[in-house]
């Protein structure tokens, strides 16, 4: 077991969740309640990471975050170094790659709240911000917890994007999924097996947990 890689993966996952949670709540709610021209295009754009091969996304991120691009140059000036092949770059790539995992469950949860319930809250004299805190967020919590769990688990096991953007630098960009690949390349099947089993068990638990809370709250609206 490569503990350093596991720790790095957990750190990456936690940071991704931390950054994506507000993005997921704001974007998910916006997509759930707003009707605007081009809404389906926005949704399609945000869902691309679901179908795009991770290497393709990784390639574009590598090119756009690298020192050769205009964006890369701006970022380099901002951070003092390029964002490829280091941990910061990995966090940015991971945030982009996990957008649909964070947004979609939250969007569905907001959509499931009947319009009448939100309107009833307004008729009770609640301001929109209070409606969000007292009514919407408590009712959408299963979606939010699902989003956190899925984003965390998905980041933990991400391989393609990490390899493209981060490379394989121990302690900096070598996550557990890369470590497994690394071990197999080195014919160290035992280590690979232990780490794979760990990821399998963790993923299984994460998904089971989201199903459990979703099932428990299925009949919220009677």
């Amino acid at each position: 077991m490569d503990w350093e890689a596991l720790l790095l993966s957990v750190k990456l996952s936690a940071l991704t969740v931390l950054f994506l949670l507000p993005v997921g709540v704001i974007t998910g709610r916006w997509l759930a309640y707003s009707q605007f021209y081009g809404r389906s295009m926005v949704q399609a754009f945000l869902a691309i990471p679901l179908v795009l091969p991770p290497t393709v996304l990784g390639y574009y991120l590598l090119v756009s975050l690298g020192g050769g691009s205009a964006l890369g140059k701006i970022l380099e000036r901002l951070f003092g170094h390029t964002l490829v092949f280091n941990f910061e770059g990995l966090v940015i790539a991971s945030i982009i790659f996990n957008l649909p995992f964070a947004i979609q469950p939250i969007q569905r949860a907001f959509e499931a709240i009947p319009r009448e319930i939100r309107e009833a809250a307004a008729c009770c004299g609640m301001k929109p911000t209070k409606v969000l805190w007292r009514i919407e967020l408590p009712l959408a919590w299963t979606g939010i917890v699902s989003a956190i769990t899925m984003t965390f688990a998905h980041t933990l096991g991400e391989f393609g994007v990490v390899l493209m953007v981060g490379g394989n630098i121990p302690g900096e960009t070598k996550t557990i999924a890369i470590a497994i690949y690394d071990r197999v390349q080195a014919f160290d099947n035992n280590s690979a097996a232990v780490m794979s089993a760990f990821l399998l068990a963790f993923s299984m638990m994460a998904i089971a947990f989201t199903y459990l809370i979703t099932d428990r709250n299925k009949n919220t609206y009677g």
Partner: protein
Amino acid sequence: MADEVQIAQGIRVRLIQAVPIPLAVDLYCQPGEVLAIAGPSGSGKTTVLRAIAGLHHAENGAIKCQGEIWQDSAMQFYLPAHQRAVGLVFQHYALFPHFTALGNVLEAMAHLPQAVRKERAEELLRRVHLDGLGNRYPKALSGGQQQRVAVARALAREPKVLLLDEPFSAVDQVTRRRLYRELNELRRSLSMPIILVTHDLEEATMLSDRLCILHRGVTLQSGPPLEVAAHPVSATVARLMDQQNLFTAQIVSHDQLAQKTLLRWRGLFLEAHYQPDYASGARVCWMIQSSQVLLHRRHRESNGHRENPLSGTIIEYMVLGDYVSARVEVDRHLKIAITLTVPVYVARRNELSYGEEVTVSLLAEGIHLMPFEKLHGIK
């Protein structure tokens, strides 16, 4: 028409819009009065209620409630829902599923000091006969109990107007009867205007002081329910009031001395009470309420039997609770039939049944004339 002072203390609503559904609404409701807005599905009833609550922004609107302006399009003014003191009972109640019954009521009390809220909320639950059930979540309450929580929550806001959107449609009939009685009892203690939206005319007649008929977004007529039923302003209103006996005829003459207006209906002559607004020779629509059709007793004359007597065969016979509705075909060739309703015991005593020959009288006082319109086109 109520005087302006009364209206100023109540609510006055004027709405005009073209989309998403056309609206041309003008209505008022006085303090303590129950106004029922009735009309078929899709007539815009709920949209009107939503506009009052601030949940629908009508293009052109002027809404004034107890002296407070809620919307004035001329001044570009629109007060958002949470700033309007409205109590709205939704059709499916829209209770907050993550709060208890008491919690739901408390959520509408943010305007009161924290210290008094709980006591007031419990008192409201008592008023709607829910004492002891405050700790239950909505899921654990029956439909009738949920409706009561919704009413208590609406009152908790101390609203300037109470809005009820088909509040009885989601419960069974036995519960509905009980809730009718409870609302009737409750309203006596309420001083704000109460607007009830319903598609059920019987419900509107039973619960309201005034009825407003809405059709395709337009308020066609307002008045006491029995008055609207007996004297609709048009054949469209008559049809919307479920008037069974609606026909066209021609004015033959007016007799001011006898206070009678003579009509020709198909080949028959009918005497109506004096209605000189329609010129001789003009075509009109006319109606008579099924309760104004007098059944002649067999073998015995009754009062009014001389007024427009017609004989025919019963071609439809239905028992509707305590009443019987019978259709009498008075002209087989023209296929014209008159519907009458009589109490069940009268039907029994007169041995009414399908296929029986009977004689009825159309009471002149009950024959109401309306401007002519094609009856087939009315829907």
